[in-house]
């Protein structure tokens, strides 16, 4: 550990939906605590009382900074950046999750501060030395910053969630910075689902091209429901229209690291493996015994998924019956 010669302070940019903090924020706060214990959370949004309430309970936080304005109801990078910029000089580190939220906003702030951002950090060695995957996780870079202010996006799955009880953070409101808007929010197309969220589910069932069509993909949903699992997909399955982009796991999709990842009809391109190979237990089901997915699977089953999935479901039913 390099000696800290100056006072440090870490600002975490909260990802939330104006109602609740998203779990990615909790992972980033945990990462922040590896840098210093003076951690502040910035909540930009509209009518965020409940989000602020959740933030106040977080043990690791010293201060919650809020910018509550109706113009911030939907996330527009051009509108949020000036607010972050207005308080940036108070910090040595500004952290955001490496989700589409953080990836969209933080580089914009970095450019305005003439800072080189460090993306997708999975490990923190000291306050200036960070570990991040490159080449879809096929190599790991250990990088050191010489900057006084470091902007960092954190891969949520690489860190635990912080403690969400016992906090006593003070709350400070900061003014909205009005910026001429060249970008207008139209709407969001979000599929409502009762299934667990892909990014933090304990079990993920993913389907690939082997499912052959959108109709067959229902088999993945049915199996997922039996295991209370989230549903993921390979890029090939999303490209072919079997399922929406929000389910894509991989280098250019979501990073997941559940306790159990079951890949069905997915061959295992390196771009897909990049998104799931940190899962604790990996199961691969594929009719092609040569499929690369088997090389990283803890348990492989070679077989026709259209026979295997129904069998799996009846075996799971049997198991549940025995247990109840």
């Amino acid at each position, binding site marked *: 550990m390099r000696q800290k010669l100056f006072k440090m302070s870490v600002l975490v940019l909260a990802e939330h939906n104006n109602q609740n903090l998203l779990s990615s924020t909790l992972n980033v706060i945990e990462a922040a605590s590896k840098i210093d214990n003076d951690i502040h959370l910035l909540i930009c949004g509209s009518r965020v009382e409940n989000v602020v309430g959740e933030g106040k309970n977080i043990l690791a936080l010293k201060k919650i900074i809020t910018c509550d304005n109706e113009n911030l109801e939907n996330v527009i990078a051009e509108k949020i950046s000036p607010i972050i910029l207005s308080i940036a000089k108070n910090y040595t580190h500004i952290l955001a999750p490496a989700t589409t939220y953080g990836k969209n906003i933080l580089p914009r702030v970095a450019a305005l501060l003439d800072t080189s951002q460090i993306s997708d950090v999975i490990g923190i060695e000291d306050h200036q030395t960070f570990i991040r995957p490159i080449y879809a996780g096929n190599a790991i870079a250990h990088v050191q910053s010489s900057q006084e202010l470091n902007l960092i996006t954190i891969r949520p799955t690489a860190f635990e969630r912080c403690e969400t009880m016992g906090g006593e953070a003070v709350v400070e409101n900061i003014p909205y910075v009005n910026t001429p808007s060249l970008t207008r929010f139209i709407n*969001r197309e979000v599929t409502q689902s009762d299934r667990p969220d892909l990014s933090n589910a304990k079990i993920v069932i993913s389907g690939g091209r082997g499912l052959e069509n959108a109709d067959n993909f229902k088999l993945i949903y049915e199996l997922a429901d039996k295991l209370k699992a989230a549903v993921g997909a390979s890029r090939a399955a999303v490209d072919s229209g079997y399922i929406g982009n929000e389910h894509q796991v991989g280098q250019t999709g979501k990073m997941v690291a559940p306790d*159990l990842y079951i890949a069905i009809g997915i061959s295992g391109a390196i771009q897909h493996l990049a998104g799931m190979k940190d899962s604790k237990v990996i199961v691969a089901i594929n009719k092609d015994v040569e499929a690369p997915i088997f090389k990283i699977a803890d348990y492989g089953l070679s077989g026709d998924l259209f026979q295997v999935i129904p069998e799996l479901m009846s075996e799971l039913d049997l198991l549940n019956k025995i247990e109840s």
Partner: protein
Amino acid sequence: MKVLVAVKRVVDYKVQIRVKSDQSGVETQNVKMSVNPPDENAIEEAIKLKEQGIASETIAVSIGDDKSQDVLRTAMAMGLDRSILAKTDQLLEPLAVAKVLKSIVEKEKPDLVLLGKQAIDDDANQTGQLLSALLNWPQGCFISKLKIENKLLSISREIDEGIENLELNLPAILTCDLRLNTPRFASLPNIMKAKKKPLDIVDVGELGIDITPKIKTLKVTEPASRKAGMMVNDVKELIQKLKYEAKVI
């Protein structure tokens, strides 16, 4: 309307990369190099805009050593009109790349800049956002749909929750997702024709931009490998293993 497309030369996506034994980086010598995949989507979209009569001129820009001329020739073989190589032997951080692109934008004055959303080598996912901030232009990141009408951009961008639809004023920066379109292959006659298209070279050293790296790579290591697993014979065995050995169901 003038469209600028940023193109990066990277190790081909099919290559299984190798970490150098001295941990100084990833081996890029004698390895197949190609256009960064999402940059191909940016090239394709620019060509489509020209075919639709929306773009009047399409320009490819790459930053790198002389070898980056390859990817510019590929971009022109696919259909872009001309190209610019900002030449440097140094490896640039995304912020320096954005500064070089900004200086080219100021000279060429495009109405739209298209980039891939992320380079598959450093996986930084920054350059488009940085460039739009430096230019103070609106940004549309990770787009999977684009429509231009009356100097107004309608985009769909892929976000973790699904799709977000935005409207942007021109000039603007867009970063392209792989699902935006299907990049065309360059035909042999077009590859020949591309050899005659203009390729200008500017020396990054003469642009007056500070490209000194702010981040030092201490070492590059192999990722932790997973220990070899096993094949199970049937579903019953799989369930037994998951229940009693891995204890995950």
